């Protein structure tokens, strides 16, 4: 493999990893507060559709991004309201969000093109790749890491910040407490329900960004089923990352790498049927899940929020 090939593989790896990482980080913060949001796939899909539609008609990628975040916030608010206030089952509510979001996105995709026609095949505004002077001259890493779009750069900054927030700050400690032991957090004066609302909504915003990155940077256009299970892979990555932002980045790169490999094999004219190539990420997800849960020793280090998925009901405390 020559240098140009390595650079191209790394570039695709990062590009494919960006939306995965946004979604995974969103889910990490949501789950840290004790709420399991299985609506990632639906939020990403709706985010991708609205981002593209708004950007296309307003000719502004940024407006598209903003609306996708708003949509993500609204959808995750629905999840929060149903699960926190009305105590609906978190698993089924998340599934409902995904089913609803998939339907809504598909509807919009067929309807929001010019003249009420389909959006498939349209070209809209994108977040272009902007090389960063000086940094792009670093061998190999420069042209692959520092020739990306603005959402990728935002992620470079956001990632350490989110890690620091979660690990080293008072609000981060409170967030972990809310997810691990809500009763204790409550005694300490941390508003449990409010925190869960806020982090679920914040997580939804990031999932919206993940969708916007798909339709305006990575794939640059709308396609039916654009997410192709990436939302679910993000949920698997949360487990892989043991609810830690930095490890999530490793996982996102791993899966981005699988995408890059898929492209590379297809481009090289492999004899492996494309159906099997397309199975790779899903097969890998299962493999990763199995490996990570294998054995008691690994499980002990997992660090899942202890109260994940359990509604917190103050009145019924004994």
């Amino acid at each position: 493999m020559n240098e140009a090939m390595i650079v191209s593989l790394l570039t695709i790896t990062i590009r494919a990893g960006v939306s995965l990482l946004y979604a995974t980080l969103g889910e990490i913060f949501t789950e840290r507060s004790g709420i399991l949001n299985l609506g990632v796939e639906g939020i990403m899909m709706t985010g991708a559709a609205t981002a593209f539609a708004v950007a296309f008609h307003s000719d502004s990628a940024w407006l598209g991004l903003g609306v996708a975040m708003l949509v993500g916030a609204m959808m995750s608010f629905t999840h929060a309201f149903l699960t926190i206030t009305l105590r609906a089952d978190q698993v089924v509510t998340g599934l409902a969000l995904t089913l609803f979001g998939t339907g809504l996105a598909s509807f919009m995709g067929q309807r929001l093109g010019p003249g009420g026609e389909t959006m498939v095949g349209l070209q809209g505004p994108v977040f272009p790749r902007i090389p960063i002077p000086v940094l792009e001259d670093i061998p190999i890493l420069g042209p692959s890491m520092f020739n990306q779009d603005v959402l990728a750069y935002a992620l470079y900054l956001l990632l350490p910040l989110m890690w620091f927030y979660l690990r080293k700050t008072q609000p981060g400690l409170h967030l972990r407490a809310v997810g691990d032991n809500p009763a204790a957090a409550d005694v300490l004066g941390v508003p449990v329900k409010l925190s869960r609302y806020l982090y679920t909504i914040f997580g939804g915003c990031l999932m919206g960004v993940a969708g916007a990155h798909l339709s305006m940077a990575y794939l640059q256009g709308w396609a039916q089923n654009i997410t192709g299970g990436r939302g679910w892979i993000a949920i698997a990555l949360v487990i892989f990352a043991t609810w830690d932002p930095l490890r999530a980045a490793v996982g996102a790169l791993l899966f981005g790498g699988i995408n890059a490999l898929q492209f590379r094999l297809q481009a090289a004219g492999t004899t492996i049927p494309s159906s099997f190539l397309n199975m790779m990420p899903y097969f890998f997800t299962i493999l990763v899940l199995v490996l990570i849960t294998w054995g008691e020793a690994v499980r002990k280090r997992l660090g899942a929020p202890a109260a994940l998925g359990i509604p917190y009901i103050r009145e019924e405390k004994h």
Partner: protein
Amino acid sequence: MNIVLERRLEKARWAVVIVPIASFLLALVFGAVLLLAFGINPLQAYRVMVSGSLGDQYALTETLVKAIPLILTGLAVAIAFRMLFWNIGAEGQLAMGGIGASYVALFLSDSLPDPLTIPVMILMGMLAGALWALIPALLKAYLEVNEILTTLMMNYIAILLVEYLYLGPWRDPEGYGFPGSAPFPQEALLPRLWGRVHLGIIFAVLAAFIIWLIMNRSQWGYEIRLIGENPRAAKYAGIDAKRNMVLVMLLSGALSGLAGMAEVSGIARRLYQGLTVGYGFTAIIVAWMANLNPLGVVFVGAFMGALTVGGDQLQVAMGIPAAVSLVLQGAILFFVLGGWVFINYRIRILRSGKQKQAGELNE
């Protein structure tokens, strides 16, 4: 002012019937607002959906055609959810059932006596679905691997496997490039009873009745329900949760596999792309709206069938994307989810002054 949820001493039985109906009506209102926002007359759209799904004999039969896979997969999801095994993989298990049945129809029917073809197809379809469900069940029972993700990932793999087969080795050599297998021989087709409604409708209703008997009248059903409702009590009662998990998933996968068999043998009469159109996902809505009751699944499945056909008609008659029915289904599930709170809780609105007092009462 403060809104407080008070736990009911007894479950509210009325809610089981009222909530799904009210949810449907609220979803219609929500859908109307959405359609208006997209510049579509909701009353006209709903009229098309109703007449397209129930208006005449053809419409009714098509509704029943869709109801068959929805009831079978709805039952599959309902029994798994009953013991809190989140099987999101009905779609993939259906696809595998389709593959299993197609294999018999395409490659074994010549060497089988004609009357045996259908029974062997049923057997292979159910077996293939059950085996596909067995993998996540074993992974969950013995390695504690998250079943939501494994069942879901296996959907994608199964759908791609179907694609590989009809585009590759099983492609019809005389199909002029049409992506699909060769048509099945006559003896591999489920007999049609009314329009396109085939024998599968009998399977579906019969399956619902049998599952109801198992769940409500057998020791096994009692164990499954106990595991779902009170895992700790089940453990103390000496019930083997792992073994039950595997058995329930075998049954669940077999039901979805049967749905796949019925689809390829009764409707498509070949293996092709249209096998996986999302029945396994709508099944989740069917199961939850029926409150996981097997007999309820029959009615909700038929209802969702009507909604699906109505959506298709919307596309044909008005050029409105059929995805409207998916949006409505999702909205119905939201309202049902929110509505189930009334089964276990009473909602009371308190003035701020009385808040403390009520809080004390609750404790």
